Structure formats: structure tokens, C-alpha cells
């Protein structure tokens, strides 16, 4: 076995691969998820896009070595599968080692959900499938062509799907780039689909590598086709992202008995509770002077349309929290705005500035607002309270539809 | 002048491994069996004699022409025929085309190379396979293609590197017949690691081990090295190899 290891090309490439992968992905930011979902997914993407093509090339190289040695003419006693296993063991172990190093370098904690556990194990399967697929290719094509086809082909099959439609096809490769924000989790269907494809390729590769019998080759092709169909069905209603909304049961909610106000935050943001409490109290007090009362429940994540919903991130400053809370007070834009004209579009920015003023946080949109919106907002705020109420209620209604003209300040002055 | 390779103080090494060091020897006329264990330097010696390799030091001369002298190298290569250990079947070429190609490489005009290839195939007993694709020959047939490639130039000396390795008894015997036909018309040196190849059909025996010549002489002189109580061939060989 020692001799085999020292003769395998994989033994010499392991450390350079580890160095390259760590250098590429070791320092990339991990996003906002403390359970390391993003980092685990990025590690898998690194292995799929960078390590797998190299392993496929090594598999093709090993196959061409065996072809050159003309083993078929020697009356070999061992089965072809044993020969393949022995030949590829160093490559697969090297790939697993690289995978483990990358994962240990990036993951902050052990995966705490089943999809993440599957995602953690997925690259080990990708290593096996890439190596076997490269080997099967190397048995059938001369090494001069097999090696570049294995390397470039594996890379293309991994990264190209993110550039084509249908959108779900990208979820079959393990090369996920869209996970995860604090409000989303990895879809188990995306991980399972990618794992099914990897397993199918591994089994087909092993079959093709171990035999030239037409029936078995046909069985490998049919089997792989069925697996691809099943995996495609599993992911076909996923959009461009391999994520789904995070369960709101993860939210940590605290209710003040005196006021009945409830604040629900994701666990990753619990250190912001004090700042959010204070800011929301200030906003409620300011709005109360205008006889406006936001919902009692302030929450991240969507729990019901009656709640005051906002979104923030772990390192948010107090002004960013202010902005996030005020955004949560704004009316939602209707879906029809993407289909055609939206007359109320001219007042959405103005409404944001007015609401920010009512909430006692006039600086919330100071840097984002256009000059025209600022001027119109000033005109609105100069109107009498009664006219402001008319402006506010009319435009709240107008913003919610696509066929209602808004009320401008000049219409009321 | 005998057309045989003359090594004068030749040294050669592969990267850091020295194979020959200050090697000097003049091969005699007639047929020489170059004997020696694996790794002795037999193939290197023949490749140097064939002009495939260039000595790091010293010279190899055949018929007054040096293998490394630019002006003389063409005449040198025309005088020496070489059959390497491994004969490659060239893709896309028939047996006759492959032999003719070697003739063309050696400087013959295309038409002459084509005509002479037929004679060369005749020497090797391959005229019946002339039109077959070279990559569809058996191992023994490919070896005979190697012989034909060597003879197309009617060289003054023929070098054969382990020509009978892997041949079945029939092909082995057939190959020996080819060598028997060559005897007397051309000098040749045959290298082998198989002591069984020693026979009275050779004029000389040279034994190489670890890059040095342990014995050079007639077959009778070689056998005289054997212990009387031991099998003659193996004993002579072992005594020569083991001798300091």
C-alpha cells in the first residue's frame, strides 16, 4: 500500500491542492449565519468547483497508466473492480483529506440541521464521483484527450448550470452560491438532489470502469438517467436559490408584560435586543403623538401580516437599526408593479421620508432620498395636521394598488 | 577495417546514475553475444553504438566515423543498423511502409526505400505480411519488422537489443534462423540477459556487469570459465559475473 501511495500522482498533489483551496476560500467572509451554514456551503462549492475537476483529471491519468501497462493481456486474477479500487484509493483518500481540511478551516460549528449535515457529507460523495467518472473516461479515450476533457468537463458541468435555464438545474451540482442569509436555510431538496446525482455518477462510473460488457454499460447509462430524472423532479420547483424561508419557530420572543409589546429576534441577533428595544420604544412614542400605533409584535422573519416586520444583521449600528425599523413600518409594494404602470411610484420615497419623520427618525433615509422626494416631503410636513392625515391615508391606499393616482402636497395646499 | 563499434573512454549517465565510466572496447568482426544481468548497461551500450545516445565523454567510432562528429554522423548512422528492445508499430502504416519509412529516414530516396523494403522483408520472412497494418502484428512478427528495418540499409554492423525477449519457442527459433542467414554477411551484436542464448553460432561473447566488461572472448573461452562439476553455461556465467 505504501508503494501504491508513493506512486500515485494524488499523493504529490494533495498538499498543493490543500494550499490552493485554503488560499482561495479560507479567508472569504462567512456571512451572517453563526451556525456556519454559509461557510459549510461555500466549502462544498470550493470542492465542487476546484478539487473535483483535478480529481477527475487524476482519475483519467490513472486509467491511462493502466491502459499503457496493457494489463488485459496479462491474465489478471483480480477483478477489474479490485484493480480500479486499488488504483483510485490514494486519489479518493487525498480528495477526502482536502475536503476535511477545507471544512475544518471554514466551519464554525458542527451542522445542526439535517440539510446541513447532508451538505457537510456531500463533497465526500462528489470526490468519489469525480474520480470514478474521470477514470471511466480515461479507459475509453486516450490520455491526451481524457485528462483535459475530465478536468475541463467536470469544471464546466459544475459551474455552467448557474448560467443557464431552467434555474433548478444548478441545484444538481453541489455548487451552491446562494446560501444563506439569517432568514433562510438550505433546502433539503437541493442537497438531496445533488447527493443523488453524485451517487448516481459514482455508481455509473464504477460500473463503466469495471466492465466493457454492453449490458452493464447500458445499465449504467439507464441508471444514471433515472437518477438524474428523480433528482431533477426533486429540485424542479426550487427557484434560483437553494434556500427556503427559515422556520419562525427559531425566533426567540420576549414579551413585556406591562406594555404587551413583543420582540422576536433570530438567535444570531440576540445581542442587539437592547438596542432594538430602545429604538422601537422611541419610535412608538413618536408615532403615538400622531395617534399612530404600530403592531404590538415586532419581529424578524414573517410570522403574520399583522406584525411589525423588519430585518437587520449581526453587526448593525444603531442608525442602521433605526432605518431597518422604519422600513418595517412602510407599506408593502404590490406585486403588480412589475407588470405595468404604477402611478403611486412617485410618492413611495416621499412616504418613507414622512414616516421616518413621524417615527422621530428623520435621518433614517437622509442619504438615500432623492432631492425631489426631500422637497415634496418638506411640503407635506408643512401642511396642517388634518391635511397631512388626508395625504397619509390617501397615499397609503394608493401605494397598495397599481391603478390609483397619488395625492401630492400641491393638491392639498 | 572491421566495421564494428569501437568505444574509447566512453562515459554515460542517466541524470545522476553513472552507467558507463571510461569504457573502452573494440568489438570484433563477426557475431558477438553481449551478455549481462538486467541493469548491466547493455541497452545503453547499444544505444550509444547506434547513435541514439551521445556519450558524455569519449567517442564511439564505426568504420572511421564518429557518432558525435557532425560531419561524420550521417555516414555513421548509415553504417549502423539498430533494433531497439521495443519495436513500435507506427499507426497508419503497413508493414512494408514502416520498413520503407526507416529506409527513407536513413537517407534513401522514397522510391529506393520502397523497392529495398521488399528485399528487407524477404530477409525477415515477412513478404507475406507486407500489406498488413503494422499494429495488427503479433509480438514475434513485430520483432521481425524490427530486423527488416535494421537491414534495409544493408548496414555494416547490426545491433539487436534483447531481440528474443517474450518470444514463444517457434518465433524464437524463427528469429535464430534470420540471424543464421545474416551470419557471414554482416557483423552483428546481440544483447541478452538470458544465458541460454549462448551457443557456438556466435564468434564472440562479451559479458557486461555494472557498466564494466567482465569478459570478452570466444565462446570456448567463455565456457572454460565454468566449474567442471557444475552445469557449464550457468557456472561460466556466474563465475564471470562474480569475478572482480
Amino acid at each position, binding site marked *: 500500500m505504501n508503494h501504491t501511495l508513493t506512486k500515485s500522482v494524488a499523493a504529490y498533489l494533495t498538499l498543493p491542492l490543500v494550499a490552493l483551496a485554503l488560499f*482561495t476560500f479560507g479567508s472569504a467572509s462567512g456571512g451572517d449565519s453563526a451556525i456556519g451554514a454559509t461557510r459549510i456551503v461555500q466549502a462544498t462549492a470550493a470542492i465542487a468547483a476546484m478539487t473535483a475537476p483535478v480529481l477527475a483529471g487524476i482519475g483519467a491519468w490513472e486509467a*491511462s497508466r493502466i491502459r499503457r501497462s496493457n494489463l488485459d493481456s496479462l491474465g489478471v486474477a483480480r477483478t477489474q473492480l479490485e484493480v480500479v479500487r486499488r488504483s483510485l484509493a490514494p486519489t479518493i483518500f487525498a480528495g477526502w483529506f482536502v475536503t476535511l481540511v477545507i471544512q475544518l478551516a471554514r466551519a464554525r460549528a458542527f451542522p445542526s440541521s439535517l440539510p446541513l449535515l447532508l451538505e457537510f457529507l456531500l463533497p465526500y460523495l462528489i470526490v468519489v464521483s469525480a474520480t470514478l467518472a474521470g477514470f471511466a473516461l480515461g479507459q475509453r479515450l486516450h490520455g491526451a484527450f481524457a485528462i*483535459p476533457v475530465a478536468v475541463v468537463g467536470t469544471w464546466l458541468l459544475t459551474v455552467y448550470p448557474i448560467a443557464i435555464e431552467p434555474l433548478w438545474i444548478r441545484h444538481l451540482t453541489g455548487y451552491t452560491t446562494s446560501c444563506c442569509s439569517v432568514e433562510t436555510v438550505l433546502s433539503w431538496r437541493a442537497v438531496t438532489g445533488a447527493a443523488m446525482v453524485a451517487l448516481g455518477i459514482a455508481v455509473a462510473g464504477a460500473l463503466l470502469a469495471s466492465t466493457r460488457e454492453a449490458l452493464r454499460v447500458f445499465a449504467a447509462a439507464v441508471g444514471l438517467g433515472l437518477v438524474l430524472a428523480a433528482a431533477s423532479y426533486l429540485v424542479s420547483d426550487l427557484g434560483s436559490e437553494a434556500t427556503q424561508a427559515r422556520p419562525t419557530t427559531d425566533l426567540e420572543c420576549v414579551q413585556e408584560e406591562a406594555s404587551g409589546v413583543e420582540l422576536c429576534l433570530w438567535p444570531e441577533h440576540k445581542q442587539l435586543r437592547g438596542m432594538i428595544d430602545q429604538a422601537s420604544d422611541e419610535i412608538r412614542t413618536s408615532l403615538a403623538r400622531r395617534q399612530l400605533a404600530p403592531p404590538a409584535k415586532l419581529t424578524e422573519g414573517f410570522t403574520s401580516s399583522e406584525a411589525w416586520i423588519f430585518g437587520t444583521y449581526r453587526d448593525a449600528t444603531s442608525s442602521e437599526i433605526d432605518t431597518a425599523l422604519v422600513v418595517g413600518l412602510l407599506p408593502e409594494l404590490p406585486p403588480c408593479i412589475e407588470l405595468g404602470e404604477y402611478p403611486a411610484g412617485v410618492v413611495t420615497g416621499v412616504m418613507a421620508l414622512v414616516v421616518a419623520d413621524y417615527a422621530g427618525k428623520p435621518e433614517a433615509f437622509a442619504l438615500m432620498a432623492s432631492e425631489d422626494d426631500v422637497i415634496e416631503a418638506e411640503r407635506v410636513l408643512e401642511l396642517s395636521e388634518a391635511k397631512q392625515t388626508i395625504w397619509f391615508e390617501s397615499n397609503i391606499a394608493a401605494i397598495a394598488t397599481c391603478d390609483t393616482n397619488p395625492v401630492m402636497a400641491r393638491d392639498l395646499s | 577495417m572491421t566495421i564494428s563499434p569501437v568505444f574509447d573512454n566512453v562515459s554515460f549517465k542517466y541524470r545522476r546514475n553513472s552507467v558507463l565510466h571510461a569504457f573502452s572496447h573494440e568489438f570484433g568482426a563477426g557475431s558477438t553475444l553481449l551478455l549481462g544481468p538486467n541493469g548491466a548497461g547493455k541497452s545503453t551500450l547499444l544505444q550509444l553504438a547506434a547513435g541514439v545516445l551521445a556519450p558524455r565523454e569519449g567517442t564511439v567510432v564505426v568504420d572511421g566515423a564518429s557518432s558525435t562528429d557532425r560531419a561524420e554522423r550521417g555516414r555513421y*548512422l548509415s553504417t549502423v543498423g539498430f533494433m531497439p528492445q521495443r519495436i513500435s508499430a507506427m499507426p497508419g502504416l503497413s508493414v512494408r511502409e514502416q520498413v520503407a519509412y526507416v529506409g527513407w529516414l536513413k537517407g534513401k530516396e522514397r522510391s529506393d526505400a520502397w523497392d529495398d523494403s521488399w528485399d528487407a522483408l524477404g530477409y525477415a520472412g515477412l513478404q507475406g505480411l507486407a500489406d498488413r497494418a503494422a499494429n495488427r502484428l503479433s509480438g514475434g512478427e513485430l520483432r521481425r519488422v524490427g530486423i527488416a528495418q535494421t537491414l534495409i540499409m544493408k548496414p555494416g554492423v547490426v545491433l539487436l537489443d534483447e531481440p528474443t525477449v517474450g518470444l514463444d519457442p517457434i518465433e524464437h527459433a524463427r528469429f535464430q534462423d534470420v540471424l543464421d542467414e545474416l551470419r557471414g554477411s554482416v557483423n552483428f551484436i546481440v544483447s541478452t540477459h538470458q544465458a541460454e542464448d549462448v551457443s557456438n553460432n556466435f564468434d564472440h561473447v562479451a559479458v557486461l556487469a555494472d557498466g564494466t566488461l567482465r569478459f570478452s572472448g570466444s565462446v570456448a573461452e567463455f565456457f572454460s570459465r565454468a566449474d567442471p562439476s557444475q552445469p557449464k553455461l550457468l557456472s561460466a556465467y556466474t563465475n564471470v559475473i562474480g569475478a572482480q
Partner: protein
Amino acid sequence: MKWWFTARRPLMLAQAVAAYLAFLVVLGGAELPLPSILDPGAASTPLSVFLPILLIAALQRSQDEVDHVVEATAVRPLWLLRLVLPCGLLTVAIVSALVVAAATGGDQLMAGRNFVGYLGIALLAYRWLGSRAMTVAVLVVAGLAGPLGARQFGEPEIWAFPLHRPGSLPAAGICGVLLALGLAQSMRKPSLRQLGI
């Protein structure tokens, strides 16, 4: 010379050239994301970086079953013949890149320039490491150029010539030097690696 050329699989070479031209027209202008060390965001890599490897693979294949030991004993000077295939493929790569780029307005000129550099690398690898290293050496250069040499904004590292835009003079210079070195090595007597000894 006809036998010399026949032994180098002309049919395979023609098929490889045809496939290369087809890919060049259809895919030559496509770009794909490739992870980059220097910038965490994905830089895009034109497929023209990888397409010319097909011609290098064909060149390697054509050399693979030739009896280099027999050719080493040739009286005829073969140094010029040894340039025929590389220069023939070079002509195909450059002319096709010019024509397709002019017709489509795409970046196919990159493929032609990259082939120049790759050919030099392949010929050097052939001399020092043997024929099996030709394609691998080119793959290593092309494969590392993206992760180590690409940047999301601005020009790639100067050595990452496969990624440079078609009009890049430094890249053209590097490719020219590599080609000159490779062709010069090709004209020499075969090395031990090339002879398979």
C-alpha cells in the same frame, strides 16, 4: 515525408481541428465564473482559455505512438519536420481566431493568442518531461490562471496571460517568448524523456 506524416495520425488531427473550429464558433465567446483567490467574488473566465487545449491534446496524441528511438537514428535532418505539426496547428489557431473574431466581434482572438503560449509550454514540457506532460502542463497553467491570477476589477496578473484581453501586449509578449523557446527546443535532438528512455 508522407510516411512521417501518416505515422502522426493525420485523420485524428483533422478531426481535432474540426472540433476545435466548431467549439470556437459556438462557444468561443462564452464566459463562466471561476473562483478567484485575489477577489472573493467570482471573476468570469472566457472559454477561450480552455479551448486551445484541444489542439495541444491532438498534438500530444499524434506524437504518442511514433518510434522516436528509430527516428533518433535518422540520417535525414528531422529538425525541420519536427516543426511542421506545431506550426501547422499554430496557423490553424491564429487564422481561425482572426476570422471568427472578425465575423462575430467576439473575443476569439484570445483563443489564438493563448494557443501560441500553450504551444510553447507544451513543447517545453515535451522536452523536459515527456509527451504525457504536454497537456497536463498546459492544464496547470490555464487552471491556475483563474484562481491565482484573476481579479474581479482591473487587469489580471501579468503572468496569467490566458486571461488577458485580446489586445494585451504583455500577454502577447509572454506567449511569443514561450513559443520561441518551445520551437527552439523542438529543433534539438530528442531528449531522453522524449525518447522514452
